[in-house]
Structures are given as structure tokens and as C-alpha cells.
């Protein structure tokens, strides 16, 4: 029993509640409540990742002990994979909320913003921590409903259209997920992920397995915006206020999409080769198509949103490669390497994509436009924005010594060692096209023309925004340290062990 686990959900829920009540009477209280909540969560997520040391700790809600070895209560499970995701969610959340201090002041009803923000964080923490599939669905809906509201926060034409599209597709995804869950319950008569694995066993018919896997893959694929399901992402992520774009792109698609896919396909289902092939193909497809769609964009935030699809493709593809190798039973060390690359890229993508969205927000804050053609020459006027966005652009296109280089390198090496030469070539080409696309962004936004410094020319953004951007830029550099073996053993290796060892997760939870 780890007493920290329920705090991850309870504290932001309480924060959301308090913001609405206290914010009515005290001006500015909303900001500080939001910041304190996220700071607290960030600290306890670091405590939990360092204190875990490869173990799995379980919190049984309401203290319902298992009966005859069958878990009956609601389990909240904190393992190394969840701990990584918790660190990402709460760090990016904290920095986005600090950024919002001045950015959101241009909108009305700030109370609602901070309250919804806390709710969204509560939902995501819940998804990552819950140990049974029905609670994943509930927390998914909590985070999704608050993100629908946050995308529409500006209530202008574009925001409303984007949020309608997002909601219809999100609702469709929820239904697919719920049907998948009910099929699983029908067969296994339990909802606990570890228990389902034990109950379904190895001899369940394929005719049952494949439709359920396809239902869940399309449901969570819609949430993760893997390529055939990506239609809502560019609209929703580009229309939202910038700190929210950073949260959606940097965190929500990972926590609600990729994380759950990894958890279900590695820890709940038996890994089969055809499903692994499908996942790899979808990943490679998102990687290539996402970047090709991105290259023609002139709206900064749409460009970044399409790059999110492409970069998530890397993660899905490397997880798929790992699954193929595990299903074949050959080269387990290459499988671990591929999954390590995927997880590492997941962490890195959170840092650099949030930074890029915050940069886009800073540019929009000062110049009032998102169109690359009508800006330029900002390098001298906004030095902090310009230099941090340069760091992020280099990181996303995989230039050493930034973090993106190491994760892409690990993925490509794993693909070559697993004899997936075609996928390795695609990964390299996509990386080059990404570089080209970000060169365009840098050139049109920050150089290209000279602007005289005058009274009316755009100037550097206020301190809270600069603070968030600089911190994330430093993180982009520091995260490359995960490539070192000493750091990797603490952060990545236990998470990979949970994913690759088919029995570890089940036995350690049903045994408690």
C-alpha cells in the first residue's frame, strides 16, 4: 500500500473544486491554487519514480482485499511505466500552468480555465494509475470532457468547429472502447487487467481475440491520432489556447492513447505476430503521412500538430517492432532496445513538442498571427523565444546533442538489428523531412526580414512565459542523459521489464 497513489487523483480534483469556490472571492487565487497543485503533483511524481526501484505498488481503493486470490476491488497500480508517464504529465502540466499566468489573462473567466486544467490532469493521472479497464474508460472521459471544453475556450468560430469535430470523434472512440471492454468482461468476467490476463489464458479462441483487439486499437488509436484516425487532431490542437495545445499534444495523446495501447497489448493480451505487424504498419504509416501533411502547412500550430502525428508514429512503430520480435521469440534484447527507444522518444516528444507549442503561443501573443508568411525577423526582437524554439526544432529533427537524436538513433539501430531495413530507411527519411520542415519554420518566423526596433514592434514575452520555455529547453538538453546506462537503468529499464516480461505484471498484482 503506497499512500501517495490516491493523491495523484484526489489532489487535482480537490484543486479544481477549490479554484471555483475560492476564485470567486479572491482575485488571482485561481492561479496560485493551480500552480500549487501541479507543483505538489510534480514533486510526488519524482518521489514515486525514485522510490519505486523496479517494484510494483498497488493501492486498493476502499481496502477491498482479494477473495480466494481474485481481486474484487478497484486497484490503482503504480509501476515504472506509470511513474514515467506521471512525471511527464505533471512536469508539463506545471510548466503550462506557469505559462498560462500571463497568456490566459487575455481571455475571460480564468477560473474555469484553471479548474478544467486541474480536472484534465486528474483524468490523465487516473488513466495512468488505474489497474482495471473500466476505470481507464472513466478517467479517459474525465480528461476528454475537460479537454473538449478547453479546446473551445476561445469560443470563436474555429475553436467551436474544432471542438465539435473532436467531440464527435471522441464520442465514437469512447463507444468503441466501451464495446471492447464489455466483450472482455463477457469472456473473462473480471475487469482487472492483471486478472484478465490470467483468466483469458493462452487458449482463448482467435475469433474472440482479434475483433476485441481491433475494437480497442481503433478506440485508443482515435485518442492517440494514429494515421487513419487522425482527422480531429490538427484542428483541435491548433485551435486550443497554446498552453492547452502543449498539454494535448505533449501529454494527452500519450496518456490516453499510446500508454493504454502499450499497457493493454503488452500486459493484458497475449502478443500475437499479426497484431504486432498491424501496429508496426500503422506506426510507419503515421510517421510518413504525418510528416508529408505537415510540410505544406503555413499555420505554425497546424504544422506542429501534424508533426505530433508523425512523431507518435515513431513510438508506435518501435513498440510494434518490439512486439513482433517478442512474438517470434527471437532476439529478446533487440525487442527491449526497440521498446526502450520508443519510451525514450515518448519522454522526449513531451519536452520538445510542448516547448514548440509554447513558442508558437509566444509568437501569437506578441504578433497576433499564426501565419508563417506574415511574420519574420523576430530573432532580434524575441531572443528567448527564438533561441528556445531553435533548441526544440533541433531536438525534434534529431540533431545531436539534443534528446531527439538519441531516441531516434536507438529506434533506427533497433530496426536495423531486428532486420527491418525498410522501416529504418523510412525513419531516417522522415527525420530529414522533419528537419526541412523546421528549417522553414525557423526561417520564416525568426529571420527572413528585418524589423526595425520601435515602439510598436513585438517585444519579448513576460517572465512566466519565458520561465516555462527556458525550463523546457534545458530539459531538452538534460533528457539526453537518459541515453547513459546509469540513468537508463533507473528510469527506462524497469519499465521495459514490465512490458517485455509477459508474466511479471500479472503475477505481482494477483499475488498481492
Amino acid at each position, binding site marked *: 500500500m503506497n499512500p501517495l497513489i490516491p493523491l495523484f487523483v484526489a489532489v487535482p480534483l480537490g484543486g479544481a473544486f477549490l479554484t471555483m469556490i475560492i476564485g470567486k472571492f479572491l482575485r488571482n487565487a485561481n492561479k496560485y491554487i493551480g500552480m500549487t497543485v501541479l507543483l505538489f503533483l510534480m514533486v510526488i511524481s519524482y518521489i514515486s519514480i525514485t522510490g519505486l526501484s523496479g517494484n510494483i505498488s498497488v493501492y486498493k481503493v476502499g481496502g477491498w482485499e482479494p477473495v480466494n486470490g481474485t481481486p474484487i476491488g478497484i486497484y490503482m497500480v503504480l509501476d515504472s511505466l506509470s511513474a514515467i508517464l506521471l512525471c511527464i504529465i505533471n512536469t508539463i502540466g506545471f510548466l503550462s500552468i506557469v505559462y498560462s499566468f500571463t497568456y490566459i489573462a487575455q481571455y475571460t473567466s480564468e477560473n474555469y480555465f484553471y479548474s478544467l486544467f486541474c480536472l484534465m490532469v486528474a483524468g490523465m493521472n487516473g488513466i495512468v494509475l488505474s489497474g482495471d479497464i*473500466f476505470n481507464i*474508460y*472513466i478517467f479517459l*472521459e474525465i480528461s476528454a*470532457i475537460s479537454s*473538449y*471544453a478547453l479546446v*473551445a475556450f476561445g*469560443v*470563436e*468560430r*474555429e475553436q*467551436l*468547429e*474544432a*471542438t*465539435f*469535430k473532436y*467531440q*464527435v470523434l*471522441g*464520442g*465514437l472512440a*469512447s*463507444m468503441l472502447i*466501451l*464495446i471492447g471492454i*464489455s466483450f472482455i*468482461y*463477457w469472456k473473462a*468476467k473480471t*475487469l482487472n487487467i492483471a486478472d484478465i490476463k490470467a483468466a483469458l489464458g493462452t487458449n482463448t479462441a482467435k475469433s474472440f481475440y482479434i475483433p476485441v483487439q481491433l475494437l480497442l486499437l481503433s478506440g485508443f488509436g482515435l485518442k492517440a491520432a494514429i494515421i487513419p484516425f487522425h482527422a480531429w487532431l*490538427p*484542428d483541435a490542437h491548433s*485551435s486550443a489556447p497554446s498552453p492547452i495545445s502543449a498539454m494535448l499534444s505533449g501529454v494527452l495523446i500519450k496518456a490516453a492513447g499510446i500508454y493504454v495501447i502499450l499497457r493493454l497489448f503488452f500486459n493484458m493480451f497475449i502478443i500475437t505476430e499479426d497484431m504486432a505487424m498491424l501496429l508496426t504498419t500503422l506506426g510507419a504509416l503515421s510517421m510518413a503521412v504525418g510528416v508529408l501533411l505537415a510540410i*505544406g*502547412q503555413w499555420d505554425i500550430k*497546424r504544422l506542429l500538430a501534424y508533426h505530433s502525428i508523425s512523431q507518435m508514429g515513431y513510438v508506435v512503430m518501435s513498440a510494434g517492432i518490439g512486439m513482433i520480435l517478442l512474438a517470434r521469440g527471437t532476439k529478446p534484447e533487440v525487442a527491449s532496445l526497440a521498446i526502450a527507444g520508443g519510451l525514450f522518444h515518448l519522454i522526449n516528444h513531451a519536452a520538445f513538442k510542448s516547448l514548440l507549442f509554447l513558442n508558437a503561443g509566444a509568437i501569437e501573443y506578441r504578433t497576433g498571427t499564426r501565419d508563417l508568411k506574415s511574420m519574420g525577423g523576430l530573432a532580434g526582437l524575441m531572443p528567448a523565444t527564438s533561441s528556445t524554439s531553435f533548441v526544440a526544432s533541433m531536438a525534434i529533427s534529431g540533431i545531436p546533442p539534443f534528446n531527439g537524436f538519441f531516441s531516434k538513433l536507438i529506434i533506427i539501430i533497433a530496426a536495423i538489428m531486428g532486420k527491418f531495413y525498410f522501416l529504418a530507411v523510412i525513419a531516417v527519411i522522415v527525420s530529414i523531412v522533419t528537419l526541412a520542415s523546421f528549417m522553414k519554420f525557423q526561417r520564416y518566423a525568426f529571420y527572413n526580414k528585418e524589423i526595425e526596433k520601435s515602439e510598436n514592434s513585438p517585444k519579448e514575452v513576460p517572465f512566466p512565459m519565458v520561465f516555462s520555455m527556458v525550463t523546457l529547453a534545458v530539459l531538452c538538453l538534460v533528457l539526453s542523459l537518459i541515453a547513459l546506462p546509469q540513468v537508463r537503468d533507473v528510469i527506462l529499464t524497469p519499465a521495459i521489464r514490465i512490458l517485455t516480461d509477459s508474466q511479471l505484471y500479472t503475477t505481482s498484482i494477483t499475488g498481492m
Partner: protein
Amino acid sequence: MILYLLCFVLFLVGLYGVITRRNLMKITISLSIMEFSTFLFLALIGYVKNGVPPIVDPAKPDVIYVDPLPQAMVLTAIVIGLATTAMLMAVIIRIYRKYKTLDIREIKNLRG
């Protein structure tokens, strides 16, 4: 079996509506139809033939009870469905104020 099939037909009716309707309100209604077909399916899963409501009576030890867990799940899911529908309706009202129409063909600022 026939009930499950009817459930699936209801789901397809909802899906057809979401895909083909042009009116925002009708899309929302179709989405609700889909939701309710799913709830119906969940409730059916818990049904046991000749089962009685799961209130344990010590006097009759050999009766069969239906599974109560799907019922709890359906109740939760209905509440969530209510929240999403309310949210969609709020957005539709806002859209109507901005665009003065509910026709999806005329609401297409975002492209590409």
C-alpha cells in the same frame, strides 16, 4: 441471440446517422443512439437466464442471481454519456450563435 443482433443493428443505425446526417443536432442524436446500444449490450451481458435481482436472500440459497457489475457499469456510463451530450449541446448552441446555421456543410473554416 436475437437481442444481441438487434443491439448491433441499433449501433449501426447510430453510426449511419453520424456519418450521413448534415444537421449538427441529428449527429448528436445519432451519437446518443450509438451510446444507448452500447449500454443495452452491457446490460445484456450481465443477464443470466431465469436470474433474479442480485439481492441476497438467506432463506432461498439455490436461486440464480443476475450479474450486478454490468448494471453498475451501465449506470456510470449513462452519467458520462449525459455529460458528453450536454457538452455537445452547449457547443452546438454556441456554433448556432456564431454561424446562424446548423448545416455542417456551411461550417468549414478548418481545412488541410
